[in-house]
């Protein structure tokens, strides 16, 4: 697993009282193109190149930072476990505490920005447990970072918390995002309730973003079941209204269903309901559980072996497909899925928290398989086994 945050081993030249900074890493030979650029230095050659190209900031990897006068004045030294950082990546850095976070990795296709940790849901399986704190600085940091993101970036996500709680700020940010990165596909993961407000939905539609999708969870065809999962009364009604208002304005909507013991046993009913009532949505994602955050605390309520809903999941996919609704399965390895749904199973787990088991080396499907989450306390299905001839 890649560590996405940590503390710098050493910091020089930054005023500890200065506010949070956004730093973009540059290969030394490219030279600085923005005041936020810092040369990424792995060895003495890099250092020479950085000086030759006039960098005044640097990020040094590894403890053996050269003791030389010929070195940029402002520098951050990081441990070896951040050796994955590369040209074009972006860090958020807090000089007072030396704490930093990797905000963006140019070579990754799984870049997502956490917008806030606040939420009006308290989902029983939340992988990112909410905190009731003022964290509006996060959005300010994102707005600093956006102009530094590679213009070729194909897709980007914004997650939470509930990103739409401070909806005016988020919509303003997306407005900038559309102008700065017009071809980049943008996903926002929301619980959808904000869109029950016509004012918010109108503002969202007015963005006229060419590649914007909002992913919204629906956990059941029945209000009480959904409300229990998200631990919020009235959530189902508002979420459904939100989806209807978004589609009324022609906005792209994905419905997401996380599969666990409260949702998986009804997955056929839920998908039949989606196919019948929301046939105009753009995509349905049926998602295996990430066993981290609240999912660990509620393991006794939530755990179900995917083998125990394998048939229902296949029928659910078939129901959606027959209604011509695009559907994908996320986060579940192929060995626990019926063969009929393999074409729908995506390699969905973000690269930084994705891995395989030793037995996967002998599996013919590994190169097409989602693999596993490395976060939290992974639980493995009894169905896991190598597929095919190399068994």
């Amino acid at each position, binding site marked *: 697993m890649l560590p996405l945050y940590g503390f710098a081993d050493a910091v020089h030249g930054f005023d500890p009282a200065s506010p949070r900074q956004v730093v973009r890493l540059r290969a030394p030979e490219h030279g600085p193109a923005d005041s936020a650029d810092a040369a990424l230095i792995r060895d003495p050659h890099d250092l020479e190149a950085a000086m030759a190209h006039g960098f005044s900031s640097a990020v040094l990897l590894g403890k053996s930072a050269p003791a030389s006068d010929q070195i940029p004045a402002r520098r951050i030294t990081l441990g070896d476990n951040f050796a994955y950082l590369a040209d074009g990546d972006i860090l958020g850095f807090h000089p007072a505490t030396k704490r930093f976070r990797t905000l963006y990795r140019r070579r990754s296709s799984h870049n997502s920005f956490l917008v806030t940790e606040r939420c009006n849901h*308290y989902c*029983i399986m939340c992988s990112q*447990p909410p905190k009731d704190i003022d964290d509006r600085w996060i959005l300010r940091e994102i707005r600093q970072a956006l102009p530094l993101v590679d213009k070729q970036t194909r897709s980007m996500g914004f997650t939470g918390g509930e990103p739409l709680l401070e909806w005016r700020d988020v919509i303003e940010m997306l407005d900038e995002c559309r102008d700065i990165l017009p071809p980049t596909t943008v996903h926002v993961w929301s619980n959808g309730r904000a869109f029950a407000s016509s004012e918010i939905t109108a503002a969202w539609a007015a963005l006229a973003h060419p590649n914007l999708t909002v992913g919204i969870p629906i956990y059941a*065809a*029945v*209000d*009480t*079941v959904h*409300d*229990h999962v998200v*631990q919020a*009364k009235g959530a*189902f*009604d*508002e979420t*459904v*209204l939100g989806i*209807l208002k978004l589609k009324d304005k022609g906005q792209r909507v994905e419905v997401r269903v996380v599969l666990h013991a409260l949702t998986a046993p009804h997955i056929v*009913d839920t998908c039949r*309901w989606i*196919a*019948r*009532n929301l*046939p105009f949505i753009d995509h349905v994602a049926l998602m295996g559980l990430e066993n981290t955050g*609240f999912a660990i*605390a*509620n393991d006794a309520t939530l755990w179900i072996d995917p083998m125990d809903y394998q048939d229902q999941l296949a029928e659910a996919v078939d129901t959606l497909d*027959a*209604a*011509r609704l695009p559907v994908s399965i996320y986060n579940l390895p192929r060995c626990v899925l019926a063969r009929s749904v393999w074409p729908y199973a995506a390699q969905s787990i973000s690269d930084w928290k994705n891995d395989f088991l030793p037995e996967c080396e002998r599996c013919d499907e590994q190169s097409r398989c989602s693999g596993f989450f490395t976060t939290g306390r992974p639980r493995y299905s009894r169905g896991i086994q190598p597929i095919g001839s190399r068994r």
Partner: protein
Amino acid sequence: MARFLPAEAFTAPEKPHDLLPFRFERQASGVLVSNMVGDFVTLAPQEFDRLVALDIAPGDGLYEKAYAAHLITRQRQQAQHQLLALRLRSRMAFLRHLTPLHLFVVTLRCEHSCPYCQVSRQSTDRSRFDMSEETAQRALAIALDSPSPRIKIEFQGGEPLLNFPLIEKIVSKAQAAGKRTGKLIDFVITSNLALLTDDHLAFCKANNILLSTSLHAPAELHTNNRPRPGGNSHELAVKGIRRAQEALGRDRVGALMTTTERSLDNIEAIVDEYLRLDLDGIFLRSLSPYGFAVKTKQFQRYDAKRWLAFYQRGLRYILDINKSGRYFPEFYSALILRRMLTDRPIGYVDLRSPAGIGLGALVYNYDGRVFASDEGRMLAEMGDDTFALGNVATDSYRSLVMSDKLVGLIANSLTQCAPECADCVFESHCGADPVYHHATQSDAVGIKPLSEFCARQKGVMRHLLDLLDNSPEDTAILRRWGGA
């Protein structure tokens, strides 16, 4: 970490339940219930009684079933109503396209003399029974005046190929007008194909015209059902279909069968013939009580019960063909399935409410009279002018469609409020047929328990529901037909 609340915390009855509108029918297997947009759910009799009494609570299984099926909502909730409203709006959206179909009876003459003919054919003596150019012009002007952005002009007879020069003129004038106004216009010629020439085909090809014909089987049945001088009607129809497929493309010619008494025992042979001719499906139709069909007593020779047995036997045979891998839909079932499994707006003229008369189609007779439907024209040939709306010489699109006569016939026959229909569990998927009920019961609304139309509709829908509930293999095929 805050405490997580148990399921019961979200099921407390602080917001009481309300019933939403639904329809039901008691059956041997339980109570069949349909919501406002025709989703079906079967409940046990006790469950149904509890639902009606609202003796339900989250977690008891019935609450979940009823909520997912939009039979109940909770106070202060909006989503259940909004979902029903938008789905109903989608289902009724065919009303946005007023009068998309225009039938031109370019001649009443025909060289066939079919005993069941629903149109009263005349001898092939020219002058009296051909549509004049002036009448055609005026009819076209009315058709172009209908608000629908896309219309279909269907040439009918008699045998329309007997007045082909008029077809050529109408097509060319319509196309010129379409270019001018942006209206899209499709053309169909309904012909027995016996007189089909290469010139006809070249014209159809050049103008993208569909051909529609009648085909019975086996050959001997077709020839007997559809007599013509020379006794070769089947041979000519088959030849015509093949030539049209070759000249225009396989999907540019369709065939219709009509169920006569003699067809009832021959459905397998009929289907085989359609397969042999590489047709893309079949429509198991029933005979209508109009025209010569009544005069020759053909209509009375079989009743709904026998027709349903024929339909079920035919459908079984067709489903088995599909199981073997060939996609070959039965079009009537496909239409009902689209209605039952999706909310796509379906304005099929003979199965909708408000009825398709006038709002779905207008018929311009050879003599300039305008009728609300093809069957209405047939009634007029029998001396009953109930569905005669006016004349192209004196009327406009607006005066025809807004006439008190048409508005009255449509308003009185709405299934949404007609006796029996309003409470029928199948209402969402059925339609008003004021012409049929007028013809058979002298009453545009009709007494539905005595209506064979009603018996056929209910029979077809019950049968399809039975297959969907109990036969997964058939269901996979039926869902494809219905596009869901």
